């Protein structure tokens, strides 16, 4: 079969049958004999000193096997890059939900009962609940010992920050920004805010840890097992080789599963009891104590010339990182997608200042395109406002300013990626932008661009005598279709039926793997799969796979192992066009239809791709209209999914996706990443459509009916 014919055919998901029949075993389902259940005592205060912890009554409860407090793990801190989050707090608690003690018991009910019997005496300290307060010169320093925190190796030391309550900070520029502003015909300035939102995977975090001889066995929902192994080794002071991290089936991620917090104390509980110990996070705790998307406050200032062409731009962005920076794997401890505002446009001179800030709120983490939805909401709302001021249509302003190949972008780097003007034009045509508007209806646009991930991975192939090929990889599949993608690339390259290609995920006993994240798997693991398949092809020496298999003797296999580095710069892009109706009496926004014009290069999993694009759209719709993980006095107000409103299928409008792709991506067969491409642009397109429909401009997400109602009334 022609290899590209295979890739054009809808895929059969490797994990599809097990998931749809209920046979799939998630971490919480795994049967580990003798496993105890863990529960945690958590701080009710946003900031307090721990005066005493009395575990006496908990210890004597029947069925309780171990009770640990911060004193037992003093000094141990966890994190993906900066290890600043105590395994259990021993002197101070820094947010509501911070853990001070852990119990292992025969059942979850007993463990939770024991937690209620733990008496902790706190002395409350003033809480920093606001980023501006935290950055005042005289603000209390939340991490006075930050200099002693471990910064996981990889790419050097933790960059210096101007204020001790900064987690990360960057100020970067290109061009002569001040001179460019001085020559601008018009200068516009706007501010936007976005709330915390939650990744909301169906499956909450879960983990089981047990000791097996010298080994520490971990089964975790973490989507990057090698990284978790390294974090545990650093925190617990164990040799990496002693820790083996494996996955069960993972039930959704969206960034949440990059951070693990329970595995560390589970190790101590397993050691104390001699039993495997399991923790399954209650969904209320997922919502209130894990690592949601950072809330933001972004101020943008842009100068344009007389024709509406951008000449100068600056941004000041603050992201509320909460009590710990542990959820961010990035070296600068920023949500990097939030730094470069006005991405995708020609920006000859720009200055960006962005910071993540320590506060006494729930710690922020990574979520589908970290930082980018905040950035794109601000940038694309700002552009619409500028267009209106200039008397241009929002579309025309964008056409005049999109980056063409080689143009300087907002980072100063030349543009590498799709033809953005063509995507915008196509989206405009499909939605009927030129048709006369009905009263109360409006159309909004936004442009989203997303880098294609880079990095390296190793994939091994083994051809057996029966003609089957086993693929071995360290990467998991958290629902994104990663294993199916690898299978199809191998099958297409070797010209075999995908059903003859089995994908086996290895634990951390196999070759190192960066895991899922950063729009990485298609270019990196897909690239590695292609390279490995090509290496196997070489070994066949011109024979067919079937002939080569038949030539093998019993037990013999033909093996290759390939490490692949994906280094090329590239972007996927999506132009959004969304039509809404606004009920002026109530402020209610109904999304009537939407068009996505996308360039993701070549599709490898056509059905999965559609799922990623449609799913990304719905994900963005939630952020646009309903999702708000609001805190009040440091406490998350929505402790269940009845109050934290995700869109349902009934809320999804007709969606048309148009592909303007020509297989020119840098990934295997010209593919690009798609999982984080669509969601960032949706909120801005909705807010812009609401403005077009009603005149109401909402500068804060989500665009709720009440906010629109207030904007229309000027209150």
């Amino acid at each position: 079969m022609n290899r590209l014919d295979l890739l054009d055919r809808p895929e059969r998901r490797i994990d599809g049958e097990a998931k749809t029949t209920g046979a799939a075993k998630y971490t919480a389902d795994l049967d580990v004999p003798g496993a105890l259940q863990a529960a945690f005592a958590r701080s009710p205060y946003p900031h307090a000193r721990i005066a005493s912890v009395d575990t006496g009554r908990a210890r004597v409860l029947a069925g309780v096997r171990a009770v640990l407090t911060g004193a037992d793990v003093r000094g141990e801190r966890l994190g993906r890059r900066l290890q600043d989050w105590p395994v259990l707090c021993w002197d101070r608690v820094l947010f509501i939900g911070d853990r001070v003690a852990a119990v292992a018991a025969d059942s979850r009910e007993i463990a939770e009962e024991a937690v209620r019997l733990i008496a902790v005496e706190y002395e409350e300290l003033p809480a920093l609940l606001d980023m501006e307060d935290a950055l005042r010169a005289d603000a209390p320093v939340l991490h006075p010992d930050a200099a002693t925190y471990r910064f996981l190796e990889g790419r050097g030391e933790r960059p210096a920050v101007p204020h001790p309550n900064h987690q990360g900070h960057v100020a970067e520029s290109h061009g002569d920004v001040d001179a460019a502003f001085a020559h601008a015909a018009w200068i516009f300035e706007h501010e936007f805010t976005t709330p915390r939102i939650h990744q909301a995977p169906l499956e909450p975090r879960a983990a089981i840890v047990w000791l097996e001889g010298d080994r520490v066995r971990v089964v975790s929902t973490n989507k990057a097992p090698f990284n978790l192994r390294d974090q545990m080794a650093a925190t617990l002071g164990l040799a990496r080789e002693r820790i083996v991290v494996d996955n069960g089936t993972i039930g959704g991620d969206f960034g949440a599963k990059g951070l693990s917090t329970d595995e560390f104390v589970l190790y101590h509980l397993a050691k104390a009891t001699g039993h495997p110990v399991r923790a399954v996070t209650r969904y209320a705790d997922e919502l209130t104590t894990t690592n949601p998307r950072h809330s933001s406050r972004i101020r943008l200032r842009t100068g344009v010339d007389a024709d509406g062409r951008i000449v100068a731009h600056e941004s000041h962005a603050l992201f509320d990182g909460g009590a710990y920076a542990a959820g961010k794997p990035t070296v600068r401890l920023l949500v990097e997608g939030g730094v470069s505002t006005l991405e995708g446009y020609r920006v000859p001179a720009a200055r960006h200042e962005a910071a993540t800030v320590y506060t006494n709120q729930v710690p922020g983490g990574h979520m589908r395109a970290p930082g980018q939805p905040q950035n794109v909401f601000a940038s694309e709302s700002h552009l619409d406002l500028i267009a209106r001021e200039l008397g241009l249509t929002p579309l025309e302003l964008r056409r005049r300013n999109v980056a063409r190949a080689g143009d300087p972008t907002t980072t100063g780097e030349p543009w590498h990626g799709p033809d953005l003007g063509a995507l915008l034009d196509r989206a405009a045509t499909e939605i009927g932008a030129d048709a006369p508007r009905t009263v109360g209806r409006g159309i909004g646009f936004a442009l989203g661009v997303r880098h294609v991930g880079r990095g390296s991975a190793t994939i091994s192939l083994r051809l057996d005598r029966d003609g089957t090929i086993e693929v071995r990889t360290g990467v998991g599949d958290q629902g994104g279709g990663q294993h199916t993608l690898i299978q199809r690339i191998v099958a297409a390259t070797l010209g075999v039926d995908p059903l003859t290609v089995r994908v086996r995920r290895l634990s951390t006993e196999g070759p190192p793997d960066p895991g899922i994240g950063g729009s990485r798997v298609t270019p990196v693991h897909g690239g590695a799969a292609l390279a490995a398949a090509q290496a196997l092809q070489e070994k066949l020496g011109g024979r067919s796979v079937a002939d080569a298999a038949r030539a093998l003797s019993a037990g013999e296999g033909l093996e290759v192992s390939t490490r692949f580095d994906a280094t090329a710069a590239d972007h996927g892009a999506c132009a959004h066009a969304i039509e809404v109706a606004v009920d002026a009496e109530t402020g209610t926004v109904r999304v009537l239809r939407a068009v996505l014009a996308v360039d993701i290069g070549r599709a490898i999993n056509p059905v999965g791709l559609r799922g990623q694009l449609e799913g990304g759209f719905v994900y963005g719709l939630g952020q646009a209209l309903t999702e708000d993980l609001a805190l009040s006095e440091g406490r998350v107000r929505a402790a269940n999914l009845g109050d934290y409103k995700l869109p349902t299928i009934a809320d999804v409008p007709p969606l048309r996706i148009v592909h303007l792709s020509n297989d020119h991506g840098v990934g295997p067969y010209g593919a690009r990443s798609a999982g984080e491409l669509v969601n960032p642009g949706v909120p801005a397109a909705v807010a812009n459509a609401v403005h077009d429909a009603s005149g109401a401009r909402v500068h804060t997400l989500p665009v709720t009916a009440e906010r629109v109602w207030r904007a229309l009334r000027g209150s």
Partner: protein
Amino acid sequence: MRPFDYLEPETLDEALALLADDPDDTLVMAGGTAIVILMKQDLIRPARVIGLRRIAPLRAIGATDEGLRLGALATHGALARSPEVRGHAAALASTFAAVATVRIREQATLGGNLAHADPAQDPPVTLLALDGVAVARSKTRARRIPLDALFVDLFETSLEPDELLVAVELPRLPVGARATYKKFLPATLDDYATVSVAAVVATDATGACTHARIALGGAGPVPLRARAAERSLLRRRLDDAAIREAAALAAAATDPIDDLRGSAEYKRAMAGVWTARALREVA
């Protein structure tokens, strides 16, 4: 979830007798959609649960000489599909169809819904506007409780611990009466209402209003009757001025809670907007 004693009586008398044994430490479960969640979250810990699902007669829906009788164990789905319910008031059928999702509707019951007394629920609002009366039974007593006396406070009813709600009776509507239920869902379509309004009116040959009921949901700690608004409509033509006046009076009758579904100010204003919309539909 913690262990508890679970009893499944076959008849109403058996259920009432079991309940009378230990009314204070017993939780009565119909569809279980609300209380099982609370039990799983360990927020309520009943020692004993009486499941009513085997008591088939309590599922009956049927016309009576005086109107319509709805059995307490009828599910929302059954009520939404019932020709008798639709025949009485199509708005009542559509109210049950507006609750939550299909999985909930086929499990949750009328009696469970009313006894739970969640102020954001839909059916109490329309039933209130239809002059519904709850029929309660204990081992020794039977009594009829008009719905506006059933709801006492948030999640609190006037049912005694040994009483079961067994049915809701609806009197026959005036000839030509028109009814509607409006559920305001500004966020997602599976949500609780931010506010909701049920309106029932009848007019005489001259167009003058002879019967008016306006009930509001999500507008206070219990479903409310907007009585001043109702009175303002009587003997008047239901023109724009009359509707606006009634809407303003309905809004003034509310006492909403500030919560994630909107500020009290917004909910009050929306109660007015949706009252007007409901009245325009039935005028």
